[in-house]
């Protein structure tokens, strides 16, 4: 039971990374992309191939996977200059499917027995979940802080401006092209990092794990938590993973029909959306020019001081 809860936390951590990436694209910059399965796929494959065929360590493959996904994000980002809204959504969805189809055609079996992540001689195995949780959530925390900084920097404000009104942003001298591509590259790179950790945990990569439902799940996490809100998307990832693994956690999965799990999941989505269409925590209110220093803000986050709470929608 405890073991399974730990597993959910690990999966939630991996998906939280993806949700942070998706949030950068959809939440901050307002582009509806359904391609995170593709980024996830590239990251997973990069780690699997580098570690297994080229003898890289997990840590060496991590930045390469991030860069590979980032390049893909760049390639996807370029066409987005011309596409808007639902057209962008369907184009990115198409790209995700292309990546999966090509991966399936290259090798439908995928890669197995990928070497584990090591740190100072310590091996992160699937049996020692607590260490893996620490590892993955440390990364979630790092990326959360980085993206929180980003959201409140010049870059983040430019992205928010593009989301709110592209024409106005452009006329205010914001280079829309640059920031849109930047958002895609960053979001994709984090998706690739998530893929690395998935490979490190399951030690197996298979193209059938990267269907467009994964992209949909990630988007769900972002919308469910609250778009453009760093904390909210992590909460969204936790909740979505918790809902989808809840029957297995409490041992209901072998009692109720298998489809019931999925039906409950669908019901939860509908009910949560009707109840909180803006997401559970809603959008982060922009504090243009937050007067506090980074240190104060960090302290504020951990102490949860009222000043910060007041700022939330």
């Amino acid at each position: 039971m405890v073991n399974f809860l730990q597993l959910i936390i690990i999966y939630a951590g991996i998906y939280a990374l993806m949700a942070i990436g998706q949030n950068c694209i959809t939440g901050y910059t307002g582009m509806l992309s359904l391609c995170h399965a593709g980024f996830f796929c590239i990251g997973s494959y990069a780690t699997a191939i580098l570690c297994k065929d080229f003898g890289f360590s997990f840590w060496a493959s991590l930045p390469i996977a991030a860069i590979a996904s980032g390049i893909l994000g760049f390639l996807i980002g370029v066409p987005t200059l011309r596409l808007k809204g639902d057209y962008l959504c369907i184009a990115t969805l198409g790209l995700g499917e292309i990546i999966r189809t090509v991966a399936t055609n290259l090798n439908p079996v995928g890669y197995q027995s990928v070497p584990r992540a090591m740190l100072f001689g310590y091996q992160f195995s699937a049996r020692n979940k607590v260490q893996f949780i620490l590892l993955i959530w440390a990364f979630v925390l790092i990326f959360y802080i980085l993206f929180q900084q980003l959201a409140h920097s010049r870059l983040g404000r430019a992205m928010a401006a593009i989301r709110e009104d592209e024409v106005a942003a452009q006329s205010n001298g914001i280079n829309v092209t640059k920031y849109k591509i930047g958002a895609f590259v960053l979001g994709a790179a984090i998706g690739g990092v998530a893929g690395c950790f998935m490979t490190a945990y399951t030690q197996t990569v298979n193209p059938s794990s990267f269907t467009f439902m994964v992209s949909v799940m990630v988007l769900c996490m972002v919308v469910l938590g609250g778009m453009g809100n760093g904390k909210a998307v992590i909460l969204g990832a936790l909740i979505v993973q918790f809902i989808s693994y809840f029957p297995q956690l409490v041992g209901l999965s072998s009692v109720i029909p298998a489809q019931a799990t999925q039906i409950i999941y669908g019901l939860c989505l509908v009910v949560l959306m009707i109840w909180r269409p803006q997401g559970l925590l809603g959008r982060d209110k922009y504090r243009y020019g937050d007067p506090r220093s980074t240190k104060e803000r960090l302290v504020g986050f951990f102490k949860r001081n009222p000043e910060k709470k007041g700022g939330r929608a």
Partner: protein
Amino acid sequence: MTTLIQYLQYFLNGITLGAIYALIALGYTMVYGILKFINFAHGDILMVGAYTGLLTYTALLGDSTNGAWMLIAFFLAMLVSMAFCAILGMFIEKVAYKPLRNANRLAPLLSAIGVSFILSNGAAWIFGTQSRRFPYPFDDTPIVIAGLSITPHQILTIVVSIIMMIVLTSFVNKTRMGKAMRATSLDQPTSELMGIDVNHVISMTFAIGSALAAVGGILASFDFRVSASMGTMTGLKAFVAAVIGGIGNIQGAMLGGIILGILESVGAPLLGIPSSLRDAIAFAVLIIILLVKPDGILGKNEREKV
């Protein structure tokens, strides 16, 4: 010469395949045109339509092998299925989408994904996970002309999709309800002020879109088989077809469907690559089309945001 006939056959195959996509895309595009909202559950309504049609047809037919009665039973089954799906569509709209009409655009999208989960898994629960065959209500011996073969059910699919396209176009352009729909699509609050019952119009849109999905589902099940998951990929492809043609545009959906079908059929052998990459080709062409014409082939150029 043989190669020419071979490619002509691929082309013909592509058109018949595309007709199915077109038929489903019509429903997609209809709902999108009015509400500017991707109804992800459309593919699953299609699946419900196929199951309803199949069950009604087998129930009506019983042990009868009378040719005329088979045809009548088939069209009755289609009507029952259309009615059922129309009601289901209106119900889903009332429950899952109406409360979200004024929310941000992603909320109804997610709600639709939830509905899609419920429908497809509910069907798998009730009907099981195996695929079923929809028996042909007529003799389906292929017709061979000059080395090219086509079957009666494929001709039926093409004819029905063209009829549906014409009926739908004239409905939207000529009737009072059609005008109300176009007004709602342009400006909801103003239409309301002009005395249009927007709720009723949206309900009707969903009813018509879902009834179209039922027809599409039944005709698709000849080629795709009836199964709980039949709607997912078919729905996605139909959506792609609608986008290629310019989503919201009825002729565009037809055009997009046919283009997609031909691409899938001819693309791989023409490029000399494995056929398992056909989806990749179809999606790649989709992206290229969108890059050249960001609003689809027949789409109007309008600016929009998430």
